[in-house]
């Protein structure tokens, strides 16, 4: 226990330098901004800003990028409540009761509960990372190639289970992601695969152009296609502070949301979005009078908003301790770490303790900043919403172009982004999700390497994955998960959960 406090102290001392605090603030503010603005999500933003962070110190870069992620979970709620427009997928459910509360003149209470609930969730999940991080990291040090391969299989399977929409299409998207990751020079033999003599492809496709194309460009095209300008409802915010009754009704929802979000965030494929949906469903089930939901029930704001923040933070646990990104944002964070010369995984905590604990500490500080800054700034965010999309999207495109180009000053990567923008658009039209593809793409090289190495060790005996206990458990868990998804009754439950 004292260990953890010492470590946290180390983390806080690493973060509380003026420049790191500044980057934490910048990240949190940018996160809130994109959380407020519909049509641009954390994945695209982090991909866009990644090149800029190359010049920073690793800790500063990661602090800022992490801030964008949890900041977006905060910011998304503001517009959900005030104008019934979720800035982020993680705040979609907040619209249901949050906007109703605003219509009833209780916008202030809803915003305050969302912020305070998020802050509580942020504190708890920061502690959870500090508690479970070292444990998981020391556990995973016993891993070698077969275990890593099985772990990644489990990661990908859970990503499928928790993905929205069709299971089989998610499987196909992961396979496609794995396939795309193999493009480039084969590490073991030096053979150039699928490069067609294009020199830019010999190092493989970059994940930044892919992420930006899939999540940024295609999103813009889809928004333009819908063609509607946002309308702004100007509702006066009266009385920011919730009443005693509000607190009484919502504290339990906050606690449950935090717990649920923390658990779902750790699971691969989990994170902010699924946590908020699950929490809303749970609150509705547990409520004495479920009919209040949809008519301005404060639990319907408190639960999901706490859950999405907890989920967005605990999803750092598998990345920092196992080197396994659990969602698209974490995949980008992993890319950022690799570019900074840090191998994500159990080694992080030992080789760069200041980095690990610094990040943990920065999350708590960032959450505190968000609570303090956000409530007074609500007016500004709502004003920003008035910037018409027709001025906004060319600006986003400019940032995408410069972001990708500045990676290697290579126009070819800009064209790759265009190709993936088009692909992302086609995927959206055919109901295929981009996130599993990105996960597969990031994990692909690691899986190939570990599979090949495991096969070398065992002389081609696939039983190596089952003879080793940890690996076997991981694979059995994957099989059970896959079975559950295919099994019809569970599948129906899952669809129900996503319906709500």
């Amino acid at each position, binding site marked *: 226990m004292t260990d953890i406090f010492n470590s946290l102290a180390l983390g806080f001392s690493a973060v509380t330098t003026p420049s790191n605090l500044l980057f934490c603030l910048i990240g949190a503010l940018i996160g809130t901004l994109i959380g407020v603005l519909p049509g641009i999500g954390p994945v695209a933003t982090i991909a866009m800003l990644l090149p*800029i962070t190359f*010049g920073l110190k690793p800790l500063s870069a990661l602090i800022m990028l992490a801030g964008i992620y949890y900041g977006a979970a905060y910011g998304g709620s503001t517009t959900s409540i005030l104008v019934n427009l979720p800035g982020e997928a993680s705040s979609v459910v907040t619209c249901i009761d949050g906007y109703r509360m605003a219509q009833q003149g209780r916008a202030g209470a809803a915003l305050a509960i969302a912020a305070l609930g998020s802050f509580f969730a942020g504190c708890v999940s920061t502690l959870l990372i500090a508690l479970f991080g070292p444990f998981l990291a020391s556990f995973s040090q016993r891993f070698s190639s077969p275990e890593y391969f099985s772990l990644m299989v489990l990661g990908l399977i859970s990503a499928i289970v928790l993905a929205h929409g*069709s299971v*089989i*299409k998610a*499987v*196909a998207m992961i*396979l*496609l992601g*794995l*396939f795309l990751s*193999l493009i480039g020079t*084969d590490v*073991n*033999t030096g*053979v150039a*695969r*699928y490069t*067609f003599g294009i020199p830019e492809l010999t190092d493989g496709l970059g994940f930044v152009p892919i992420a930006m194309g899939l999540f940024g*460009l295609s999103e*813009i*095209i889809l928004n*333009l*296609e819908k*063609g509607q*300008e946002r309308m702004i409802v100007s509702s006066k915010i009266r009385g920011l502070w919730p009443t005693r009754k509000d607190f009484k009704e919502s504290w339990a929802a906050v606690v449950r949301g935090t717990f649920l979000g923390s658990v779902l965030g750790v699971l691969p494929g989990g994170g902010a979005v699924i946590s908020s949906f699950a929490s809303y469903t749970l609150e509705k089930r547990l409520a004495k009078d479920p009919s209040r939901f949809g008519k301005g029930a404060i639990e319907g704001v408190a639960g999901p908003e706490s859950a999405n923040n907890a989920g967005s933070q605990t999803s750092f646990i598998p990345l920092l301790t196992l080197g396994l990104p659990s969602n698209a944002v974490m995949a980008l964070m992993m890319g950022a770490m690799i570019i900074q010369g840090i191998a994500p995984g159990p080694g992080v905590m030992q080789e760069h303790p200041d980095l690990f604990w610094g990040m943990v500490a920065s999350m708590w500080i960032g959450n505190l900043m968000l609570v303090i800054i956000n409530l007074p700034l609500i007016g500004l965010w709502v004003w920003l919403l008035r910037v*018409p*999309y*027709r001025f906004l*999207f*060319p*600006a986003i*495109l*400019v*940032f*995408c*172009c*410069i972001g990708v*180009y*500045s990676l290697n000053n290579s*126009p070819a990567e*800009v*064209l790759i*982004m*265009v190709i993936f*923008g*088009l692909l992302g*658009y*086609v995927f959206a*039209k*055919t*109901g*295929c999700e981009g996130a599993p593809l990105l996960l597969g793409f990031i994990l692909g090289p690691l899986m190939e390497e570990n*599979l*090949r190495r495991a*096969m*070398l060790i065992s*002389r*081609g005996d*696939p039983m190596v994955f089952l003879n080793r206990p940890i690996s076997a458990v991981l694979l059995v868990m994957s099989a059970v998960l896959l079975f559950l998804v295919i099994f019809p009754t569970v599948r129906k439950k899952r669809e129900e959960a996503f319906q709500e």
Partner: protein
Amino acid sequence: MIPFHVKNRQDFYGGLLFVAFGVFGVYFGRSYALGTIIRMGPGYLPIVLSYALIVIGAYISIKAIRFGESTIEQYRWRPIILVLGSIVIFAFFIVKFGLVLSIFLVTFVSSFGTRQARWMGSVILGIFMAVLSTFLFIYLLGLPIQVWPR
């Protein structure tokens, strides 16, 4: 386009897309050495994955003919061409003509992706973005990018 009635159009075309990727992988990957399961060659995993994509894609498409219900939403060429086209212009202009001109063109061309765009407004937006991004990325962040045409 297709001679029979498909119930689940999203899945049908999605599946075909996966098959197409698989065929691409098998065709262009045919020259890479497969190796054995103990010593996998460079072609082993790409080929395995490509065949898996073909099988799964075909399954999705065939199933979609009879089961489910979905349509492909109406698509519009205007935003697709102007958004992606403006970035293609950027890719071909940036090295020779520098940041200022390229950014102006990206902003100007893409802004017509919506019908509400007006000539004057787009010109002003283009100049604004060119100035802003030069200031931000060149002077503030010091990115090594050509600013003016060479």
